[in-house]
């Protein structure tokens, strides 16, 4: 949870994923959408931000030899980069989708760690044209290894995650998705950020943001 100054507008802290955790720095990757992110973009080096975190869970690194499939939609790719770095020895397959070329993030950095992402854009300006879940469906339909040898990790807009849930049911695929919900406290106190799961409402900030894909009730 991050805030940029003492102004009361915007009031609440905003949730961001850790993009990368370096030696003495943490990096976040963000999209400019509204009040806080517009203030952030005008910040200069050495300006001070207030952050509480890290909060909640992260993507679990699965034991065994299941090959990871990473699926990032738009700014939802942000939390997947660290994961990709950590599990690069497992040769993850990385699907990245976005509305348009400009919103396809950090492919250069991915290549530098030896990952060649599969890309799609809604408008066809980079990679295949169409939504990334279509590309994934195509891939799964013609997959070479048994499907249980894959584990998916995904983050992105709601429709993408919904579609992924359908795909995972159809192909009997296991995996994890990171969810977003409006947040106030970030520490599990206010019960703002719940999502519906097979075991009732769970807090994205505390039990999440990463949930087993089969647990979510859309």
């Amino acid at each position, binding site marked *: 949870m991050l805030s940029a100054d003492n102004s*009361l*507008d*915007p*009031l609440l*802290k905003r949730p961001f994923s850790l993009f990368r955790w370096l030696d003495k720095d943490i990096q976040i990757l963000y999209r400019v959408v509204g009040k806080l992110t517009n203030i952030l973009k005008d910040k200069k080096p050495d300006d001070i931000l207030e952050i509480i975190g890290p909060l909640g869970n992260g993507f679990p690194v699965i034991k065994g030899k299941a090959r990871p499939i990473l699926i990032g939609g738009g700014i939802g790719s942000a939390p997947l980069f660290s994961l990709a770095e950590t599990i690069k020895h497992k040769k993850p397959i990385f699907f990245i989708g976005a509305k348009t070329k400009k919103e396809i993030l950090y492919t250069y950095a991915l290549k530098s760690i030896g990952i060649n992402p599969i890309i799609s854009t809604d408008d066809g300006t980079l990679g295949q044209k169409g939504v990334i879940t279509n590309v994934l469906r195509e891939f799964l339909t013609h997959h070479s290894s048994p499907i249980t040898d894959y584990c998916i990790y995904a983050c992105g807009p709601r429709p993408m995650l919904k579609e992924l849930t359908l795909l995972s049911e159809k192909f009997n695929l296991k995996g994890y998705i990171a969810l977003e919900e409006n*947040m106030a406290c970030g*520490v599990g*106190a206010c019960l703002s950020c*719940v999502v519906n799961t097979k075991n009732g409402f769970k807090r994205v900030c505390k039990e999440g943001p990463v949930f087993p894909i089969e647990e979510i009730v859309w």
Partner: protein
Amino acid sequence: MNLSVNLGKLKLKNPVMTASGTFGYGAEYSEFVNLNNLGAVVVKGLSLNPMAGNPPPRIYETPCGMLNSIGLQNIGVEAFIKEKLPYLKQFDTKIIVNFFGDSIKEYVKTAERLSSVNGIHALEMNISCPNKQAGWSIFGTDPKVTFKVVSAVRKITDLTLIVKLSPNVTDIALMAKVAEDAGADAVSVINTLTGMAINAKTRQPRLANIIGGLSGPAIKPIALRMVWECHKAVRIPIIGMGGIISAEDAIEFLIAGSSAVAIGTANFVNPKAAQDIIDGMKLFMIEEHISNVKELIGRLKC
């Protein structure tokens, strides 16, 4: 420097408490705030049985405020007593339990159960949640019903009984008077104001529940006025809340007539808010040469 204040027979080490629903069951904020330093911890509203609450989205930020429609999700009285209370009892602070019911009978039953265990210092009766079904609101808006439900609870508990008033009324001073007449030891002023937000593009409400409760600095002027009106109307102590974000805000509430203050939305803005406000209050008292915080209570000059 003397910071202690009294809520009826209950003595707080300082006037700063947490507002129900914004501080979980206490543990959630213990990484940020030493609970021993607080005047009191007020926990999330409890009901006899666990409740799931409203579907998400449950909050939406508005100018200098926020709407919430949590819908009183809670783990229920029994789970609280078993799982949460033992943790809280470790601390040298007062534990105030906020609760509500769907009927007078349920209010009474819940209060009875909570009064039967050790370690709870006071009960705060929520009669003013804007997120419940229409019809429920009469507990907090119809003086006759308010009198009935408060009297009923008063009869069965010896704990300090605080009634939390709704700001969504024409005359809050009257409601405070009714609570006093029904035997309340204190009133909490105010709960959230009912509000709404709309997404202009999708034409849908921003909250799944359509309406929610407005809290935060935006409502402070209204809350302060209501505290002042209640102060003129009743003799029982008032716990002031609504948009307090700084020590100065808190002191304004004392001056308007509250004996203690509760910190709500500010906890989200700054997880150390309650602690910072206590520290700021001390500093203010030093600077202004005030040795006893009671010298501030109700001392509006006008």
